[in-house]
């Protein structure tokens, strides 16, 4: 069985009150190629810097090979990094750049020479040893950075968007080279990128992150075929995401048409999000399917045609096909049950409330929250807070407190039901809590969504 090489436990990180990583847990196996994928600002680079030793977590532990890594200086970690813009030393030539780490280790001269030339051979730069750094192309610089890191034979190599500065064609070539190198060296790679194509082609495991949290961990195929949240479905490839219901086990409905699918365990008629990839729709004659629409626009994209189809109810669906169809044609759409992904809607707490002075909203006598809404004092409102935005913390750090009534295990997290006064609030968290425990609760003010609404259902 594969050994755990890196174990991240409950990592939190804040910069000047800004929370960058929230209770982050991840295990990385030996010889694994793991990609941290997410939009900029999701905390992926911060996480990499903490493993490298350039930042320290606000709380939580990093274990490497079973040993605690917190507080260990970067020069004492058996880990090397390839930086985004390579950070090569401009005053040294290619050879001396690669030899830098070996010289610090004070190895004998002939051994350094042998190791450096081996590393340069590995990145196909053996003829460039005497070159100055500023006389190299971007791709060559990237290879020098790789050689400089692997020459030290680290157990773990961190790569921070190493291909981001290169042009598209070169990027694609280097992807395969990197993957090959990882296999032949037998080093664990942690690769950070915002490019989903890179992540899918190279990795053994993809970790999708957003706003400092893990959204989904899995193989590239898993992530692509079975996105668990709307965000993942949108971020990885193109997706049609439509509102639907689960009629019963293995039958879902969207756009008023029932489709067989492979999901069960939902409650009857539960509202869900349905995800279908553009390439998974098949265009057929309009009388061969109940789901029909008119071709509204199309673009030719080399290998495929992208066709936008407006459905009867005004929903726009995108279809990729290799065949061309005329504009304005009414067509039918069919989809294989396997290709329908059903996602739970994110949990939401809904309350009725009253606006108070100074942008505060009163939900009950115990719960008064700050909000960005500038509605007038006394306005009756509906307050919505996503369960994932309800954060549990120490009592003195929080907005209000409550007693945990119930905990339900979900796929990647727990739903924690907390009673505060006569209200119950649900929090989705990956941290383990106990029933009966008293906990502090807080919600960022921008996550408190306030609307004026007539009809209020208290959930």
């Amino acid at each position, binding site marked *: 069985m594969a050994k755990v090489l890196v174990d991240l436990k409950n990592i939190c990180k804040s910069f000047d009150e800004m929370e960058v990583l929230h209770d982050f847990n991840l295990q990385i196996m030996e010889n694994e190629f793991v990609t941290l994928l997410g939009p900029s600002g999701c905390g992926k680079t911060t996480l990499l810097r903490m493993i*490298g*030793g*350039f930042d320290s977590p606000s709380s939580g532990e990093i274990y490497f090979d079973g040993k605690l890594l917190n507080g260990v*200086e*970067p*020069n004492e970690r058996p*880990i*090397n*990094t390839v*930086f*985004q*813009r*390579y*950070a*090569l*030393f*401009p*005053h*040294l030539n290619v050879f001396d750049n690669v030899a*830098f*780490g070996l010289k*610090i*280790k004070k190895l004998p001269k002939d051994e350094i020479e042998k190791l450096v030339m081996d590393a340069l051979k590995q990145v196909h730069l053996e003829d460039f040893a005497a070159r100055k750094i500023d*006389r190299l192309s971007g791709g060559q610089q990237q290879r020098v950075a790789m050689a*400089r*890191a692997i020459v*030290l034979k680290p157990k773990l190599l961190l790569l921070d968007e190493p291909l981001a500065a290169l042009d598209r064609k070169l990027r694609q070539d280097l992807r395969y080279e990197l993957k090959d190198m990882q296999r032949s060296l037998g080093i664990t790679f942690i690769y950070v990128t915002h490019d989903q194509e890179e992540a899918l082609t190279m990795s053994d495991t993809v970790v999708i992150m957003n706003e400092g949290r893990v959204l989904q961990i899995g193989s590239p195929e898993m992530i692509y075929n079975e996105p668990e949240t709307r965000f993942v479905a949108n971020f990885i490839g193109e997706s049609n995401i439509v509102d639907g219901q689960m009629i019963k086990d293995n039958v879902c409905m969207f756009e008023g048409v029932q489709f067989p699918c492979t999901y069960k365990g939902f409650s009857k008629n539960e509202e869900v999000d349905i995800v279908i990839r553009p390439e998974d729709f098949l265009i057929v004659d309009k009388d061969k399917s109940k789901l029909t629409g008119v071709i509204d626009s199309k673009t030719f994209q080399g290998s495929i045609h992208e066709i936008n189809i407006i459905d009867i109810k005004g929903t726009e669906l995108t279809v990729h096909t290799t065949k061309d169809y005329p504009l304005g044609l009414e067509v039918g759409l069919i989809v294989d049950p396997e290709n329908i992904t059903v996602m739970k809607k994110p949990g939401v707490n809904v309350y009725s409330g009253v606006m108070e002075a100074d942008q505060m909203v009163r939900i009950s006598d115990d719960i008064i929250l700050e909000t960005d809404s500038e509605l007038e004092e006394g306005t009756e409102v509906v307050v919505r807070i996503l369960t994932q935005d309800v954060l549990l913390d120490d009592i003195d750090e929080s907005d209000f407190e409550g007693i945990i009534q119930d905990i339900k295990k979900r796929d990647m997290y727990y739903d924690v039901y907390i009673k505060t006064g006569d209200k119950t609030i649900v929090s989705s968290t990956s941290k383990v809590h106990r029933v009966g425990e008293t906990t502090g609760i807080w919600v960022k003010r921008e996550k408190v969504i306030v609307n004026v609404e007539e009809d209020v259902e208290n959930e």
Partner: protein
Amino acid sequence: MKKKTVMDYISIIFVVLAFVIIYAPIILIFMMSFTSTYSLSEVGEGFTFKWYQSLFTTNYESLNIATKYIANTDSLKAAILNTFFITILSTIISTFLGTMFSIGIHALNKKRRTTLMVLNNMPVVNPDIVTGFLLLLIFVLFQTLFGLERGWFTVLLAHIFFSIPYVVLSVLPRLNQIDPNTYEAARDLGCTRLGAVFKAIIPSITTGIVSGAMFAFTMSIDDFVITMFVSGTEFYNVSTWIDSAMRRGFIPKGVYAYNVIIFLIASAIVLSNNYLQSRKARKFKEAV
């Protein structure tokens, strides 16, 4: 060919006039430095090298051995030695301190960096007379507190003080140009904190450090105002020495020779620098 207008002639005259005004005194100094007589009206009479020799020979005997290089004598030679002693030492110290200061500022967050840069630039925009006077006040205070007499040491401190901001101003832009991860890359490859600074950062910013040192050197070598305030009564550099000589109504001819030498050295540096730059640019073009 296009006919020249009146404006063309006027502009040519202005340019010529400007250059004459700048270069005529230099030519005059050149000629005086080779003229054996003292009077400005006898320029060019009696060609001689003796004023140049005087720079290196006069008054050896009158120097107390203990104070040979920081001599409290009124001779020009002593003043020249003093000047170079102060300039070289203050350049070395202020370049070192300024470089360290820059690296420190660079590592701070933006808000603190801006604050420190304002503090750094203040002495630069401050008129010398204010800086000199403030330093004088401080040294008077030092004198009462620690019995520190004004002399070569206070001049050295003052020169280091006013040179550091110029070093920072030329090192910091270079630091902003290098890869932001340079320090971390060195740490990652096994350097200690200090090792990363000396093995990776400083070698990457040598051009900035050299130009900072040149700034410090030129600021120090011709300083008059601040030295005047803080040197006390016994210590002279060339500028303050010429000033006091002029008060006595007599400029030794060695001053001309000294100025010619300094002018030639400065010109040589500028010209060779230009040559190197253009050669580099040409090479770069060939490479591209």
